[in-house]
Structures are given as structure tokens and as C-alpha cells.
């Protein structure tokens, strides 16, 4: 899993500095204007220009003067309760049964030899739940209102003092309630499935009394080795993403339940990463030729270094040891001894570089998290007045990071080999969050996706028939998924121009590499301006559909990272934004629709 820079934005940073609020406001205004214009054009055809304008204005006015102030929670609750009953009587809860059956047979297909069974189990349950719940949301939300219109039960609703928004809200809340029930049940079953599926025990097979090292039995397709300390305690080596605590009770050695497989690390990430080249000068890190620019590389056995800068790290978060995780990759320019990993050196230093710890060697654990630690009381060097390093005992938070700021320096030891890293490849682990809470947060993420699907489904069903509403909802989701493509179109200067220019180029067989020549400069300028306008509008409108790939946070849970509160708050805000958007669109369609037509 890769953490992107945008994952670390705080909520306020995202809202204000990254312009989420501004983009949301622009989108709202654009859609409001577009809605007014479309509504007016339709009204002009029906009632004429002046009467049409009056009617559209009336509908907008009534939203704020009557329909919003007179919303009744009793009516909304009644509609929601009806939606729940409808779903239950349509045997929606059978879905839970399907899920249970899927889990019963899942064991057959989940690879027992996987490096990280926990990740495999979690990805399975989260993905299965996600798809099932989104499908559930899609089907229950798209068919309800069209079914009411078809059976004419809607007559008995709209002839009561029910406001259009109440119809929308009742449906959305009702379906969300039933979806929540299904999701919560699936979540609980999944949790039990994962925890029970991963739980296993080992027996002691052999123990060397001299160095107190031992080996466990071979269970669940793996075995562990361990070494006990003088107090008779220890942990096994990490195999398949977990360890076991080993304790000696009397003459007996007890190997406990697995630990570290279901975690929720709360990483403290560096504020920045800088590189120096082989000559010791600052650079942007080497690119070893991969298309992805996520990681940059430092060269082995040279002055090339990677320097992470940490700020505001609280000493109270740590006691005697600072835990940190390293996920560094290696790039070999020669094969060499393929069994021996590429080596590196790591040390911690103060931001002015005058105090630093001793270099600690490490071997790169590719595709794995290297769980490391450094003691707060450590050996290192302090520069004296002449700039000479004097070996001394150090206190991490007094000498290296007196104000919580420090740097981590990594070098590559092997000549001709490279180490690759990105800003998120090292982080401190003050304490882990309870896994179950992270698991719940992962399900909240799925819940948000379901909620958005329900909002869109109900919105489309206010003016489309059930099957068409499903297609429209799925289309909106797919469009959102390919939003990045629209961004590329708008932000990059693509060859061949915008939509109008392309339309001219295609039939005239004009190549995209040559300038368009129409023989009329004014016309060409007009086309270019119109193209820019269209692309700008499209780039705004693509925000009107949700990007589910961004909302999917299941990897955080599966890879054992705490799902940041800021990220979840952003997703909550996005979901609320879509809720408001779909509510308004539904209001206008329900308000202007002839239910008996």
C-alpha cells in the first residue's frame, strides 16, 4: 500500500489550503446556474418566457420559504420506516445469508501460503462487504420510487401534506438504516471470521538450554524460532506477518497467541524528505528508470543520502524506546550475491547537524515492513567548538530532538546498488490503535460509499424508471472513477485541441500534430475559447460525481495503518456534500413531476 501526500492533509488543510471548500462552492454555483437554465428552458416550452420564469422562481423560492422550514421529522421517520419495512419484506436480509455462505467457502480459496494471511483475510472481507453493500444500496434505492409510481401508491403519498424533500429524505434514511443493519452484521461476522481464522497456537519443539533459543512446532504452514532473555521472556521471529510472545513458566515454555498481525499503526510521518547526490550536493534523488516517480533513489557507497525531517514529535508519546518502521526498496545494478540483501546505514541527528547518533546498519527487507527501534538513551556524537565529533552518551529528546524536531539520515552501503525511498517510507510508531476500532473505521468508509450510492440511486429514481436509474447510478460512479482522465484533458495541453476542434479535425482528416488551419483566425480563436470553456465546465462537473477509488480506505485496515481521522472527516464531508446535492436535484424533479402522468 502506498500512502500519498494527500493522505496526510489535515482536515482544515484540505478544506482551505487545498481548496476543497472553494471547489465545492464553485461546483454548487455551477450546478445551480445550470439547473436554473435547464429548468427555465423547459418552462419556456411549457408556459412561455414570462410565466416560465415565474414558475421556476416560485419553485426555488418555495424551497426556502415553505418546503425547508416545514419539513416534518415525523413524516420523514414514517417514510424511512416504510422503506425499512419494504426492504425487509422484500427479503433484503437474505444478503446476510449469502455473505455467511461466501465466508464459509472463502477458506477454500484464500491462499494458506500467503506471506501475510491477515492482509489476505482483511482484503477479502472488506472487498466482499464493499461490493455486496454497494450492490444492495444500488438495487433498493433505484427501484423504490419507480415501483410506487407504477403501482400508484405514490398517489396516496403526494395527496398528503408530504414535501418533496421528505420523500427523498425518508427513502435515503430508510435505505441507509437497512444498509447499516446489513453492514453492521457483515462487519461483526467478518471480525469474528478474521480473528478466528488467524488464531493459532504453536508447541515447543526444541530448546537449546545454553543460549535459550528454541523452535516452535509447524502449524498453519509455518514455524517460528525465538530466544528468551534472562528473565525468561521473549518473542518469536516474524513469520507471515505475526509473532508470538514466549514466556517460561517454571520449567515449561509457553508460546502465546499471535500478535502484530492485526494492528492499527498510528504513524508519525516526516514533514519532508531531501536527497543529496553522490557528490554530496542536494538533488531530487535518482530516478532508476521506473515510470513511477513515487520513490527516489540514493547511490551506494557515496555521499548520496536521504534525509527525513520530523517536527513536533512529543517526548511523552515514547518511554524508553522509539519504535519506527522502515519500508525501503533496493535497486540492483548488478546481481551480486542475490541471497544477501542490500545494506544501509541509518542514524538520527539534530536539525543543525551538531548532534547525531551512531550509525546503525540494516539490511533491506523488500516488500516487508522492517520494524525497528532506537533507545532514548543512546550512544552518539556531539560536535565541539572546533567542529570535531566527540563520542558521548546522548538522550534522544534532550540532545537530538530538544524541541521535537530531528532528522533521520539513511545511506546505502553497497557500491553500485541503490536504495529507494519516499516521504512515507519511514514513520514513528508511538502506540498502536486498537485494531477493532480501525476495523470499525474501515466499515464507516464502506458505509459512506453505500450512503452515496443510495443518495444517487434515489435521486435518479425521482425522474427515471428503476432499470434506467441503476444504469445512470453506475454510469455516474464509473465517470467518477475516470475523473483523473478529465483532469489530464484539462490540465495538460493535449494535441489536437478540445472537443470542437477535434470534431473538425476528424472528418477533415487533419493530423493532431499540425496546427489547425481554417483560413479564418477569428473563427479559430472562437473555437479555442469555446473548447477551453467546455473543458473547464467538464472538469468542474466531474466533481459532481463521486470518485470511489479515493473513498476506498480498505487498504488502511488491511495493511494495518490507522485510518486517519482527518481523512475520514474529509470523506464524511464529501458524502454530506453529495447528500445535499442529490437532495436538491431530487427536490426539483419531485416538485415538477406530474405523479399521475
Amino acid at each position, binding site marked *: 500500500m502506498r500512502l500519498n501526500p494527500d493522505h496526510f492533509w489535515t482536515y482544515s488543510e484540505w478544506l482551505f489550503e487545498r481548496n476543497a471548500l472553494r471547489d465545492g462552492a464553485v461546483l454548487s454555483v455551477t450546478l445551480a446556474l445550470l439547473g436554473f437554465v435547464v429548468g427555465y428552458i423547459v418552462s419556456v*416550452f411549457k408556459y412561455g418566457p414570462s410565466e416560465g420564469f415565474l414558475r421556476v422562481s416560485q419553485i426555488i423560492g418555495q424551497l426556502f420559504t*415553505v*418546503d425547508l422550514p*416545514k419539513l*416534518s421529522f*415525523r*413524516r420523514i*421517520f*414514517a*417514510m424511512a*420506516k*416504510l422503506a425499512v*419495512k*419494504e426492504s425487509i*419484506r422484500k427479503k433484503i436480509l437474505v444478503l446476510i445469508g449469502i455473505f455467511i455462505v461466501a465466508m464459509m467457502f472463502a477458506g477454500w480459496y484464500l491462499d494458506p501460503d500467503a506471506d501475510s494471511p491477515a492482509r489476505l483475510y482483511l482484503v477479502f472481507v472488506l472487498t466482499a462487504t464493499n461490493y455486496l453493500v454497494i450492490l444492495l444500496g444500488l438495487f433498493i434505492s433505484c427501484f423504490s420510487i419507480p415501483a410506487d409510481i407504477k*403501482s*400508484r*401508491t*405514490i*398517489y*396516496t*403519498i*403526494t*395527496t*398528503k*401534506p*408530504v*414535501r418533496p424533500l421528505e420523500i427523498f429524505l425518508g427513502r435515503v434514511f430508510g435505505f441507509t438504516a437497512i444498509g447499516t443493519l446489513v453492514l453492521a452484521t457483515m462487519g461483526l461476522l467478518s471480525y469474528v471470521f478474521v480473528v478466528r481464522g488467524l488464531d493459532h497456537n504453536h508447541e515447543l519443539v526444541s530448546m537449546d538450554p545454553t543460549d535459550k533459543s528454541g523452535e516452535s512446532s509447524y502449524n498453519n504452514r509455518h514455524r517460528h524460532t525465538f530466544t528468551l532473555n534472562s528473565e525468561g521472556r521473549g518473542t518469536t521471529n516474524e513469520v507471515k506477518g505475526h509473532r508470538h510472545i514466549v514466556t517460561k513458566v517454571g520449567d515449561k515454555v509457553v508460546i502465546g497467541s499471535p500478535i502484530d498481525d492485526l494492528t492499527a499503526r498510528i504513524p508519525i510521518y516526516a514533514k519532508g524528505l531531501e536527497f543529496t547526490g553522490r557528490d554530496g550536493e542536494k538533488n531530487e534523488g535518482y530516478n532508476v528508470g521506473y515510470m513511477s516517480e513515487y520513490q527516489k533513489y540514493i547511490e551506494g557507497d557515496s555521499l548520496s543520502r536521504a534525509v527525513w525531517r520530523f517536527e513536533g514529535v512529543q517526548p511523552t508519546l515514547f518511554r524508553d524506546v522509539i519504535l519506527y518502521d522502515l519500508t525501503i526498496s533496493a535497486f540492483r545494478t548488478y546481481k551480486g550475491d542475490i541471497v544477501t540483501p542490500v545494506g544501509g546505514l541509518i542514524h538520527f541527528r539534530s536539525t543543525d547537524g551538531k548532534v547525531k547518533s551512531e550509525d546503525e546498519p540494516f539490511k533491506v527487507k523488500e516488500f516487508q515492513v522492517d520494524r525497528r527501534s532506537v533507545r532514548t538513551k543512546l550512544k552518539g556524537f556531539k560536535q565541539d567548538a572546533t567542529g570535531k565529533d566527540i563520542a558521548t552518551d546522548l538522550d534522544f529528546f534532550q540532545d537530538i530532538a530538544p524541541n521535537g524536531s530531528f532528522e533521520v539520515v539513511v545511506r546505502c552501503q553497497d557500491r553500485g546498488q541503490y536504495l529507494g525511498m519516499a516521504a512515507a517510507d519511514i514513520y514513528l510508531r508511538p502506540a498502536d490503535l486498537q485494531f477493532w476500532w480501525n476495523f470499525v473505521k474501515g466499515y464507516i468508509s464502506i458505509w459512506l460509499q453505500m450512503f452515496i450510492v443510495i443518495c444517487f440511486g434515489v435521486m435518479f429514481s425521482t425522474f427515471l424508471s428503476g432499470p434506467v436509474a441503476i444504469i445512470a447510478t453506475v454510469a455516474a460512479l464509473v465517470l467518477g472513477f475516470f475523473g483523473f482522465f478529465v483532469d489530464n484533458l484539462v490540465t495538460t495541453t493535449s494535441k489536437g485541441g478540445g472537443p470542437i476542434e477535434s470534431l473538425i479535425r476528424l472528418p477533415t482528416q487533419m493530423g493532431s500534430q499540425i496546427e489547425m488551419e481554417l483560413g479564418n483566425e477569428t473563427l479559430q480563436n472562437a473555437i479555442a475559447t469555446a473548447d477551453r470553456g467546455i473543458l473547464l465546465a467538464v472538469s468542474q462537473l466531474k466533481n459532481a460525481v463521486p470518485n470511489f477509488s479515493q473513498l476506498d480506505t480498505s487498504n488502511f485496515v488491511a495493511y494495518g495503518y490507522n485510518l486517519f481521522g482527518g481523512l475520514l472527516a474529509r470523506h464524511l464531508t464529501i458524502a454530506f456534500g453529495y447528500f445535499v446535492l442529490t437532495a436538491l436535484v431530487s427536490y426539483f424533479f419531485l416538485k415538477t413531476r*406530474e*405523479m*399521475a*402522468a
Partner: protein
Amino acid sequence: MATSLDQENRPLAHDSDPTQTIVETRNLGKVYRDFWGRKKVQALKSLDLEVRRGEIFGLLGPNGSGKSTTIKLMLGLLFPTQGRVFVFGKEATDVSKNERIGYLPEESYLYKFLNAEETLDFYGRLFDIPADVRRQRIESLIKMVKLEHARRRQLKEYSKGMTRRIGLAQALINEPEFLVLDEPTTGLDPLGTRDMKDLILRLRDEGKTILMCSHQLADVQDVCDRVAILHQGELKELGRVDSLLKIQDLTEIHASGLTDEAKNQIREIIEKSGGKLDRMDNPTTTMEDLFLEIVKESEQRPGRRGGRGGN
């Protein structure tokens, strides 16, 4: 010359006496169009009528005459393409008017997965009625429509008559001032029909205004104070039932205990005075009255056959 627009914008009838007019349509028209906006059918043409407080108003007409369209326009289920319709002085599209209206649709379009209690509770909530009042009304309405035995059964198990009765109960949950009944006796047996007609009259006596449309001309004749007859979307007749049905140059005498001699004398008097005797005979009762009488007797003396008709 007054234009249709002038007609639409003239002061409301209720402006002079706002309490007396419940519904007013002005030059009301409806054209159904297809997806492309092409005219399919003109369902209603320039309808002007009023429904007054406290009366039972009947809408009559064959299929496709515009009865249901008129009701749907009044309820805001359709929007007029011409003219306007006011209910309680408000535009028909104004949702707040619905607080004072009860509506029994043609086929009792209710949620089949709910039972009688749930149905009434649901519609009661839509009127924002507090829980205790709702409970009380549900009790009395279920009793009134005689569904105590089936109150917990889902509506999908109901017969057509039972569905009609629960439909009527939901229309009364808000104790409406104005009741719109679309074919209220459809699907009811003669007993149910009689109950429904009695109930309609009782509701009128309680001060409610009722608009009903029906194919059952006898029902309309029995209960309606005024009727409007529509045909092909046009209003053909409007007035009080008694005056519309009265045949001015025909005299009806009902007498009992006359001897044949007395009957002959009556014939002579008619001839002398220049009149023409069309018919003098023993009248027949209506099939409805006969049926009701038999059922009543059967309830009093079970197991015995009547024997009115000889064989």
C-alpha cells in the same frame, strides 16, 4: 369580450364568501402529450365548476370523459395545461391544502406489505398527527370500517371490499373537511355499497364536503346533492340532482289500498282533464332493496328461504 385569461384571473368565487367554496376550477384544461411534446389527447376542455361547502358533488361520465383527470388536477397529481384550479382558495399544487383533504383513490393504492394498523399509522404520521391521537383514530376507524378481525393481516391478503374499506379509513385519518372519493363503491357487495352510501351521507351530515365520481349512476343518484356530467372532456350538465332528474310534464302518484273501481275513476278523471295515462301498475322494488331485505330477514331467521318470487 372576456378572454379565457380574464376568466382565469377573475376574483375567486370564495372571495365573496370564503367559507362556501371548497373547489373552484376556471377554464381548466388538460392535454396529454407524448415524449416529444406532441399532443396525444385533450382530456379536459375549459371546465368551470365549483364544489360548495357541505355538499356531496358527483362527477359523472363514461370512461375517458375526464372525471379522473379532473380529480387528479384538483389533487395536484397532474398540472393543468390551461386554466387554474383552487382548493380551499389555494393553488392545487400547494401541498399545504392536503392537510384538509382525504382521498380515496380508485383502486385503494396502498402498500400491500403493511397491515391495517400499520397502514393507518403510516398515513397518520404523514399528517403529522401525534401518537396518542393517532392511536385513538386508528381504533375508531378500524371499528368504523369493520376490520377489527383483520387488523393485523397484511393488505395483500385482503379481499377487494376490505381493501376498499381500509382505503376509506386512510382517507379519513386526518378528519378531513373535504373528501375526494374516486369510485367509492367499486368492488363492494350490495351490503358494503349500502354501508358506504350511508357513511357518505353521514359524513355530509357531519359537515364534510364530498366530491365523488362513479360509474354507478344509482349510487350517484342516491347520495349526491349536485352533479356534473362530463363527456369527451367537456362539461355537459351541472346542477342539483333533484331538479335535473325531475320530469316537468309527468305526474307521479303513489297510493295504496285502492279498489279497481277507484282506479277506474282516476283513469276517467285523467281523460276528462285532457291528460294521458301512460302507466298504472303495481310498482317493483329495486334489486338493491330486495337484496338488503332478504339479507336482513336471513340474519333474523337463519335457515329459512324467503319465497317471494313463487318458484
